[in-house]
């Protein structure tokens, strides 16, 4: 399923504070559809807070909208949190099956290549960090989300894993999805992204840049 080209993700006055301590924003930003954006910044800059706020799992002020309508959890947004860990005693197949149920009847835009995922009968606790990350990525890219929010998605992945993860993410972008990829290391993500934003101390540094 290809999304309309004029859909855009719009952040207006997006801000997050813990008590009186502001940790993000206010951020105003418009991201066109079919764009893969690198979210850069040092540790603690606010990248994860930005992604979590867009995903609707962190309470925030300001407005997050897509194609002009406010988005809420479940409105076609897929989110991969940083250092995501599934319940240890679940198997790979059970975990993928759960997300299949959550996605419903929507046809997958793209599926992981053979060999990307570990054996389905293995428990999460038996997997290496990289294998567990592959399972988390597979769950995140399932279905046809309009927005993908990936917090350090390449962490722990080896080169073949990174290449396949990149293919999966780009396939969503090519179908019109808006994709944000957060990483503290620019070298990890700049080569695969179309544009980049940089956050420092919770604030955007300069405008969104096009990567050439």
């Amino acid at each position: 399923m290809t999304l309309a080209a004029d859909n855009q993700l719009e952040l207006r006055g997006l801000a997050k504070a813990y008590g009186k301590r502001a940790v993000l924003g206010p951020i105003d930003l418009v991201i066109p559809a079919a764009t893969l954006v690198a979210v850069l910044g040092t540790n603690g800059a606010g990248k994860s807070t930005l992604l979590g706020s867009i995903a609707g799992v962190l309470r925030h002020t300001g407005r997050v909208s897509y194609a002009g309508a406010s988005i809420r959890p479940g409105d076609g947004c897929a989110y991969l949190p940083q250092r995501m860990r599934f319940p240890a005693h679940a198997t790979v197949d059970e975990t993928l099956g759960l997300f299949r149920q959550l996605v419903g009847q929507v046809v997958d835009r793209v599926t992981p290549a053979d060999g990307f995922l570990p054996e389905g009968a293995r428990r999460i606790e038996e997997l290496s960090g990289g294998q567990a990350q592959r399972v988390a990525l597979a769950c995140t890219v399932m279905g046809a989300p309009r927005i993908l929010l990936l917090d350090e998605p390449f962490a722990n992945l080896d080169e073949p894993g990174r290449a396949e993860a990149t293919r999966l993410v780009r396939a969503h972008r090519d179908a019109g999805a808006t994709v944000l990829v957060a990483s503290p290391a620019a070298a990890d993500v700049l080569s695969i992204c179309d544009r980049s934003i940089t956050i420092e101390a919770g604030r955007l540094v300069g405008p969104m840049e096009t990567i050439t």
Partner: protein
Amino acid sequence: MIALAAYQARTLLRGRATIAAIVVFALVAGLATLLGLGSYRQLGLGSVGPAAAALINLAVLLPTAQAILLGSLVYAGDRESGFAAMLRARGTGVPALVVTTWLAVTLSAWLSLLAGFGLAAVIIAGNVPLADLATFVLLAGLMLLVAASAAAIGVLVGVVAGTRVQAALAAVAMWFVLSIGLDLAVVGLGAYLRFGEAAIIGAIVIDPLTTARIAALGLLDANGSVLGPVGAYLLDRIGRAGTLVGLLSVILAWTAVPLGVAIAVQRRRDL
């Protein structure tokens, strides 16, 4: 929601802690029953003897500890690991996150109770009158209800706690207060402060474990002397039937209210 509940339950029931809790409770309940049969009063279900009191106390204390601890750890763990956030972003509602955790934890505690009471039933089969077996089944049902309440309290602790470690510590503290602390407070302060009727009833209502103990006494048609001063007082003042209906309502409320509060609190907090 059914898929998530089934996933949570399968995951939880494979855990070593859950399996250990089920086995330990079954063994301890079986042992208590055997000791009861060894005495000339047998299990004493018709007139509460030490063995019956032990079985009631074990059922009120151990599976509830399991439920409170697992409820808090599973919920806080899912939040800390990012799993809950990932589910939420995909459209899983906050009520579903809370309720599915509760269902899974309740199921694990129920398995402990079924294993313990099942073993006890096998041991006492043929040794007690049929009427006592019916009471035994009602007693087991009552313990299932209080375990569900404990799971709801555990999930609430997990929602309120900041981290998994905090959740574990708070759950242990909560269990201690409910299982022993409030009783000690009533016994220690009751006479000194000259508690009135309302205060004593209040002391029961604020503690589902005490509520379950007293309801068990009511089921067994006993005088309240075996399980403490609060039970004796209530049975004497309100009578058996009124006490049972009231106490069951309190236990059900101790399931619904913590779940409702947990959902309300989570809606106002980050995942």
